[in-house]
């Protein structure tokens, strides 16, 4: 089967862009990615795209050009971007297409998400009584995790401190002001043990990738990034997931664990080979748990790694070098593709002030979200 390469990357900065709707931010990302690959919209044979609140991605053709291409909308919760990329990966691997675009965008209202129970297969009482908040789930998951693995609260603040520091080095980040761990720890408690600055916010933005059959990648760029694996997995019976009125007596692995394991098997690359990574940091606790769920350390090792700087840009396990969701916010449709964008920047050596040293060659991305699904990729130079 064909291999897949990423030859163009584009971003419309995350945060708030008052004078652009979500779709315009998606179009801006595509318009940035196309010249990066030396291509035009007319060269695209297919596209996959998705958005939660920004409209139907295939309507982007009204801005980009009605060329008759196959354009498929993808909606898969927080893994929308990862699922769009997986669809493009499959389309090229199968040999059906050679070149296409992947795009995600969003524009969410301020404040926490307010999902409707029926859209998630749940009954109204669950939402009406105030149990259906993603913030509660993440707080309860890390509360239990800290109890089981002896992780102190100071580690949570340290994760956010690193995110805002990395954001300060990233010209397109939303949050560019560093913040000391003490200030993060002492900010308003939102959902114990997580404070205001330990959560990312719903936001706006767009991200796009141009992908092609690896055999022809060097026609378009001197620095193709190879997509060695793209995997999406959903929850198992017994895993502890968001939007669950109850948890099963059985205990099963999180979908992240199986997605990661499959991606490493498919790519023949192990977590020890990865030089730079993006892990879903919807809040500080998520980054901690996802380090172990993705196979980068054992459960309970995180406190040592984080407090001693291993996850910083200059550490041996650099995580979320652009500040992740904490510094960029989370436009759901675009977020997973922003992660891939950043890994491509790092593997090309174009990270500027936030560049990981020593020519990173292998990267990894991971999204997790409602209602219990995970999308991961393995990327190489």
């Amino acid at each position, binding site marked *: 089967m064909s291999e897949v390469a990423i030859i163009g990357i584009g971003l419309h900065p995350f945060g708030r862009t008052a004078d652009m709707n979500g779709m315009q931010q998606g179009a801006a990302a595509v318009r940035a990615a196309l010249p990066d690959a030396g291509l035009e919209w007319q060269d695209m044979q297919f596209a996959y795209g998705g958005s939660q609140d920004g409209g139907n991605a295939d309507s982007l053709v009204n801005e980009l050009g009605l060329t008759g291409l196959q354009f498929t909308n993808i909606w898969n919760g927080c893994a929308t971007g990862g699922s769009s990329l997986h669809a493009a990966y499959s389309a090229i691997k199968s040999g059906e297409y050679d070149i296409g675009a992947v795009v995600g965008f969003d524009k969410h209202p301020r404040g926490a998400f307010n999902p409707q129970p029926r859209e998630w297969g749940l009954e109204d009482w669950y939402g009406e009584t105030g149990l259906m908040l993603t913030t509660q789930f993440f707080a309860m998951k890390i509360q239990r995790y800290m109890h089981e693995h002896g992780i102190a609260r100071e580690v949570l603040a340290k994760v956010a401190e690193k995110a805002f520091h990395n954001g300060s080095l990233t010209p397109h980040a939303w949050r560019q002001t560093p913040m000391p761990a003490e200030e993060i720890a002492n900010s308003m408690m939102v959902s114990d043990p997580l404070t205001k600055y330990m959560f990312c916010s719903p936001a706006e933005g767009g991200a796009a990738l141009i992908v092609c059959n690896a055999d022809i990648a060097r026609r378009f760029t001197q620095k193709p990034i190879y997509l060695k694996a793209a995997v999406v997995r959903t929850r198992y019976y017994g895993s502890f997931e968001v939007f669950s009125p109850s948890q099963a*007596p059985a205990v099963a692995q999180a979908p992240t664990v199986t997605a990661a394991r499959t991606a490493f098997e498919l790519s023949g690359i192990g977590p020890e080979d990865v030089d730079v990574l993006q892990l879903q940091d919807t809040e500080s606790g998520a980054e901690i748990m996802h380090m172990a769920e993705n196979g980068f350390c054992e459960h309970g090792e995180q406190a040592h790694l984080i407090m001693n700087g291993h996850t910083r840009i200059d550490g041996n396990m650099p995580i979320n070098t652009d500040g992740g969701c904490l510094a960029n916010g989370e436009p759901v449709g675009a977020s997973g593709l922003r992660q891939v964008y950043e890994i491509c920047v790092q593997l090309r050596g174009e990270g500027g002030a936030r560049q990981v040293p020593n020519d990173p060659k292998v990267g990894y991305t991971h999204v997790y979200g409602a209602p219990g699904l995970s999308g991961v990729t393995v990327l190489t130079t």
Partner: protein
Amino acid sequence: MAERVAIKEGLFTWPSDNPELIGSRCQQCGETAFPAQPDCRACSSRETHAVGIGNRGTLWTWTIQSFMPKTPYLSDETPESFRPYGVGYVEMPCGVRVEARLHENTPDALEIGMEMELVIEPFRTADNGDQVMIFAFRRATEGAPT
């Protein structure tokens, strides 16, 4: 005359002097689910039956909801009258862990492993004046029957 009605029939026994939560048990694999459902998420069988899962358990994890949720939250509160509430998963004797509101709403009142007991209580007033009843948990009183 105003009545006290369950927010959803079949979540808990009601009216009752000693209410308990109602789940479902799979006749194929024996797994218990809450709330009761006709399909088994463990083995995909469609043979389940309703079963009481008790009114006491232990706190498995918790947090505190400090701000008033947006819709679909539907209570009688206003942003001014909103009071933070605890949220937790309570492990029932059959092993299933039920998400619920908790009376305790400060970190020093909540501890993983503490004994909890079920409370059925009014949550809001319906348009017709009925009291809408929900389930919640609170720290168990000493020596209460299980």
